[in-house]
């Protein structure tokens, strides 16, 4: 599992298993407006500015060239072959299991555990995008080493990078939640966990995810290694949402710093560069991730998706037997 694919295996995959009709509808419907990019050597997508007028032409190319990796732009252009005439871009969140700053496994690369933790995070984020932000046309794609969330809601596709960064902060829980409030002229403090709605709820959920998956040797900005160990020692409380007691154990003076640190970690759980870049190319669903021999594919039901059951190409099974 997770071994690189040989050129021969790639060729077999694209000729025997891959089928252009499996391309997600959200890609197929505007295929001629996207820029395509390919990596033929394993050293990055250097073959770019490609355009395919329809699925048939893409199919012919894939079978003939069986690329190491295939990408298409998140942007729609009037002239995709020149990357000119930008019209709009999908809103993207990239959660790569290999780069998660907090994950409970200790693997090099990816394993079943961290892939599943990435999936949990994606589920929460999709919930926020739909529930709080009211966005539709949200798709989840298994990338081979993590997940992409791709949003094609018309409301967001023309937004600029700055707003996208702000959406990322909200969705990922990447900003320290507000603590000071004013009511009838008096100022007082409320912790995130005592506010069961809005951004505070999002942050509480993400913080819980981080605390429950820490190994205890993480570095959190402005927080000592001892505090990190205390978090791990007391995190069972969070399973019953006993946040007040958890905070008392951590210490009221340290807790705000811990919260700030977690906001920083949450920001790193998602690759921000991808979200703010309007002209990125993104791994093409249905294509092969040759470094790990897995299929990049749209996930219809992220609640039950298991990449090891669904995203493993046939040649891997044959390789093992």
């Amino acid at each position, binding site marked *: 599992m997770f071994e690189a694919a040989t050129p021969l295996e790639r060729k077999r995959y694209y000729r025997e298993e891959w089928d252009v009709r499996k391309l997600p509808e959200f890609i197929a419907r505007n295929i001629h407006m996207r820029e395509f990019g390919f990596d033929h050597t394993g050293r990055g997508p250097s073959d770019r500015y490609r355009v395919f007028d329809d699925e048939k032409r893409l199919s012919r190319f894939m079978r003939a060239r069986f690329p190491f990796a295939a990408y298409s732009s998140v942007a729609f252009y009037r002239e995709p072959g020149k990357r000119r005439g930008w019209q709009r871009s999908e809103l993207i969140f990239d959660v790569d299991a290999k780069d998660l700053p907090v994950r409970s496994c200790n693997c090099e690369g990816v394993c079943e555990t961290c892939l599943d933790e990435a999936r949990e995070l994606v589920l929460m984020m999709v919930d926020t995008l739909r529930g709080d932000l009211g966005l539709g046309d949200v798709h989840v794609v298994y990338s081979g080493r993590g997940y992409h969330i791709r949003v094609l809601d018309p409301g967001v596709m023309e937004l600029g990078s700055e707003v996208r960064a*702000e959406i990322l902060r909200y969705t990922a829980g990447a900003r320290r939640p*507000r603590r000071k409030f004013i009511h009838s002229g008096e100022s007082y403090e409320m912790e995130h966990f005592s506010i069961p709605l809005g951004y505070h709820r999002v942050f509480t959920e993400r913080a819980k995810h981080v605390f429950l998956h820490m190994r205890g040797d993480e570095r959190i900005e402005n927080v000592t290694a001892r505090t990190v160990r205390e978090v791990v020692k007391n995190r069972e409380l969070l399973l019953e949402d006993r946040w007040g007691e958890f905070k008392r154990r951590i210490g009221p003076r340290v807790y705000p710093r811990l919260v700030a640190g977690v906001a920083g970690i949450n920001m790193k759980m998602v690759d921000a560069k991808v979200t703010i870049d309007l002209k990125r190319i993104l791994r093409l669903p249905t294509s092969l991730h040759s470094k790990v021999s897995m299929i990049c594919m749209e996930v219809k039901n992220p609640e039950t998706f298991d990449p090891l059951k669904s995203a493993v190409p046939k040649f891997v099974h044959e390789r093992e037997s």
Partner: protein
Amino acid sequence: MVSSLFINPFSEDAREIVRNYGSPDTIFEASSALLDTVKRTRGQNLDDNSLLPGSIGELAIKRLEWYLRRQRKGFDHGDYAYLMNPEIEEYDVIAFYVLAQAAGAGFRRGSREVRLVVESAGALVEDRFRVLGSERAEIIEEVLIELGSEGTGWIELSELIGSGKLRLTDLILHRGRVVIDEDEFLMTFQDRITDRDPRSLYAALVGLELKETLISRIIMQKTEDYIERVSEMSSTVEPHPIIIETAERIRETVNEVTSFRGGPVKSAGQGKLVPDAFPPCIRGTLDGVKSGNRNDAIVLLLTSFISYARLYPSVFRDRTPLKVSDLDPDLRVVREEILPIIYGAAERCEPPLFEDDPQEKLNITAKLGFGVHDELEPEHEGESKWYTPMSCEKIKIHLPDLCRPDELCRRITNPLTYYNRKRWELQKEKSEQEGED
């Protein structure tokens, strides 16, 4: 009875007043009625005539002057008490448009002057809400309706969010809608709120405060848009001489109050940090430094480098001394981005810097220009100087272990220059080969 004019210059009533005023010819003519209103204002200092606006044109300039002075030491509210007097509202609406038109006709988009005019419009709204008393809630509702922001979706506010005027995380969102109304709040969230009174939670989370913020930000955005329209128009239609004159007064006022010596700053301004462009000495410092060099590396080198790289990378080119708050008025960037980086590096030192030298926190505050204090407070700004990064020569002497010059280092004399150069190079060669897994 206060009207919404006092808050909102974009209402139909306000536009009507401006239409009826007609040509700007008389803007700088003395108006005894205005002066009377100013003099009758409770708490107004009357001993110095130069404090009192005798014409609508002067009132326009005073609006800006008030904003420039209010954060500074020795500010006396009594000098500008009339700005908080609702009776001034009709003159003030015209003054607002004069100021905005002058900003559009006289300055380019994104300039410091335009930014200050926009910010002053927002700040004035916020301060005026505070003096409204019992009519506050009513006016808020009225203005919200005038601005059309009752029951909007957050996407309609995306321009405000993108420009940093409003944070998405400060809004209460449900299925894409911004929940502002109390009944909607209760209906939407009542079931989730178990251990407190939902009404008091509403008052804390939304209440009048968030509504006011929303109003002030929308007015800022509309001001910016208006200035932009004027700016576009003034390329085809010659602006009125009095508007040009007002623009000149804006320039003078900004220069005088902020005591610039080198003229307007062209390239100062915030930008995202590009860590890939950091010179070797800064990278070394960020990784954590061993005792010996530790204190100087964090307090002297890193603090000044990071703060200038983030807020004012062109300081050596522009040679205009600015304060941190000129570039980051609410100190949000300093608190949320700059200090965490510095504190993080301090934590990575061997042993962690603040563990045995907690007073170095005070020194970091001081090096940013906020005097020797534990926390960054706007009122302390100016008690010390905002330090520019030390030169490579000084680094070689004081922090020899950190100086590991690379190719580019040989061509520059200051780490900040390295940063600017490298950033430019990186941008130029920004790879075509970016793709994401």
